[in-house]
């Protein structure tokens, strides 16, 4: 057998050993860490990080868009000051929020202008909800739009997690109580008399 042939056979055998080793190692890894790897991969694909853009003050126009979105999401008469305070605090305190809020406002305003309105805050409630439906990936069971968002609209996932879900959580533990007939929500000084009486707006 010629020397080059022996060498190429040796290389071939080395490659086979390497491949078998990799396959065995891979199988071992999948068996032992498969769950973790899968969840990490899924997390990386479906849960894009907020980012670490520096915090800073929000322009009034962005706060206006966020508050208008809040009204669209909860479809309820609400006093909006504490939502505006919430958005401003997060933008000024936590990394990533200011930039995300600004991108959200840009997306909302762009959609509003495509419909002929000057901006999102200037739209009526029904139009705002229609725009939110275009942007949000929440609707239950809509797998296709979620997959589409995973590939083409990754910011939508951030909007859902860091804006829409947070607005709904804030609403749940504030105005949600009022909507159910409470005079005010936990977190406000309610005094020590009214809880001992029957609810007035039940």
């Amino acid at each position, binding site marked *: 057998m010629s020397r080059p042939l022996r060498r190429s056979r040796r290389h071939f055998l080395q490659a086979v050993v390497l491949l078998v080793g990799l396959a065995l190692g891979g199988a071992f890894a999948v068996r032992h860490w498969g769950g973790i790897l899968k969840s990490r991969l899924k997390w990386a694909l479906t849960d894009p990080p907020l980012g670490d853009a520096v915090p800073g003050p929000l322009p009034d126009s962005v706060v206006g868009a966020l508050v208008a979105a809040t009204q669209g999401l909860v479809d*309820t008469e609400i006093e909006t000051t504490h939502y505006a305070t919430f958005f401003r*605090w997060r933008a000024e305190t936590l990394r990533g929020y200011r930039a995300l809020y600004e991108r959200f406002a840009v997306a909302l305003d762009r959609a509003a202008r495509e419909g002929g309105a000057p901006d999102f805050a200037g739209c009526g409630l029904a139009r705002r909800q229609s725009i939110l439906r275009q942007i949000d990936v929440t609707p239950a069971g809509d797998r296709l739009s979620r997959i589409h968002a995973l590939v083409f609209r990754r910011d939508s996932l951030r909007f859902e997690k860091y804006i829409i879900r947070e607005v709904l959580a804030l609403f749940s533990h504030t105005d949600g109580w009022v*909507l159910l007939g*409470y005079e005010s929500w936990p977190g406000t000084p309610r005094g020590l008399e009214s*809880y001992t009486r029957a609810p007035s707006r039940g």
Partner: protein
Amino acid sequence: MKPTVAIVGSGIVGAAIAHTLSRSGYRVDLFEKGPEYPYPHAKQFSERIQFMYENPIYAASKDIDAVTVSGDYAWHPDRERFLRVGGSATQWSAITLRMRPTDFRTKSLYGYGEDWPLSYDDLERYYGKAEAHLGVSGTDVDNPFAPRRSRPFPLPPFELSYHDRQLADILRARGIHLHTTPQARTRLPYEERAGCQNFGACQFCPIGARYSPTYHLLGALKTGQCQLHHDVSVRRLLIDKAGRGRAVVYQRNDESKEQEHPADVIVVAAGAVESIRLLLLSAHGGSAGIGSAGGHVGRHFTFHYLSSGGCHYASPVYPNRFGGFAAQSHQFLDHPSRGKRGALKVEVGTQTPFHSGRVTRWGSQSEIVAQLRPRLHWRRIILTTESHPSAEKYVRLSDKRDRFGDPYAHIHHVATDFDHENLRFAREIFDLLAEASGGDERIFSEDIHSGGHHMGGCRMGRNIRDSVVDQYGRLHGSSNVFVTGGSTFVGTSGAVNPTLTMVALALRTADFIGDQLS
């Protein structure tokens, strides 16, 4: 010059002792492993409640705040304590109950556990002092099961809520008695604390109405006799051959060099788990640690078991209108079958159970109301059951180490047959309450935890053969090293929340130290 006192741990026990001794003119140095925690907790309230943000600066780093666990305890004890200035009681429920006289004598009366080396009567005066110290609101007038008291509560009680009164009426007809709950919330302004305004976010009370140890820490600091060292880990105690504590060895968490702090008296008040760990780390004449000549350090470590159920009613019960704790029943603390089963306490929760009624999908108002409405119809019922020590419940040093190279504490816990019987009893009482009150659906959570009630491990007793410390918390074999707090408990304080007893014992220890030093 007045004698000096070093206290390890700035929680509710360390703060009480520091406050008492510094006001008596003793020089006190408090060592706290965790970070600062502003008081009143208005900033924390804003962050958590208004801005839904858990600020990591209030938590100790995980490489100094961890335990390892084995056995059958499903929760992780790391989730049940807060290492920070003021300790876990910066965020507690503030229920302040006295143990019953029988709880001190379970072995004699019921044949389980061990008797304490002191009686209810020995501690009664200090229960009164502890209630005054914490500003407890309460009454015994509506509670026929309350133990005797020599002085009234410092503040009037928080009334039952409208719907709790309705529930109490229904249950009374079935022979079950609900009553108000003594708690360290100010029903009226008290000392320098504002009266409760029912913010309902009591874990982060913004006005100091719910007691926080930082209130008394600030009082101690104001005397000019007390110094607080936070972000500092005490790594061991130095004890001489005669058993006399000489100094604490500490290290700033961000520094590489350890230092000695000499003191005339050393008090270990670092929470049950860390107190045990510190004694074990301070090995003196052997690997088992200080005070362990009798082999008791780390043994007899117990938890309460808190289980909770949710009960659904056809008519709304309007939870969450009051933030504190309104209704309880102490009827089962000394029930006729005690002995076969342990004590059991019932709390009617004011909070919405199991996160029911949250909005997770946006939509029309009617869709949103449909998501919210379930919260109106659920009532939470919490049951606390007694436990007692066994060979399968202990704390030892772990194989894993912290940033300084010191072993963490390792908790081993396996529930006994007695514990399982108590949990069955809890389920039985929950079903009874649900059925009697007309609940049409019920959930009983299997997610059982200790409620942060960690007890034993440095238990008190008459001598070194049966315990670690004496009834004043003084380490057997030492004249000037004390251990205080839940770690010195002999059992689980029946089924009542342990904190008032911890504070009563701490104030008693402080008086004892003051008498000794003077």
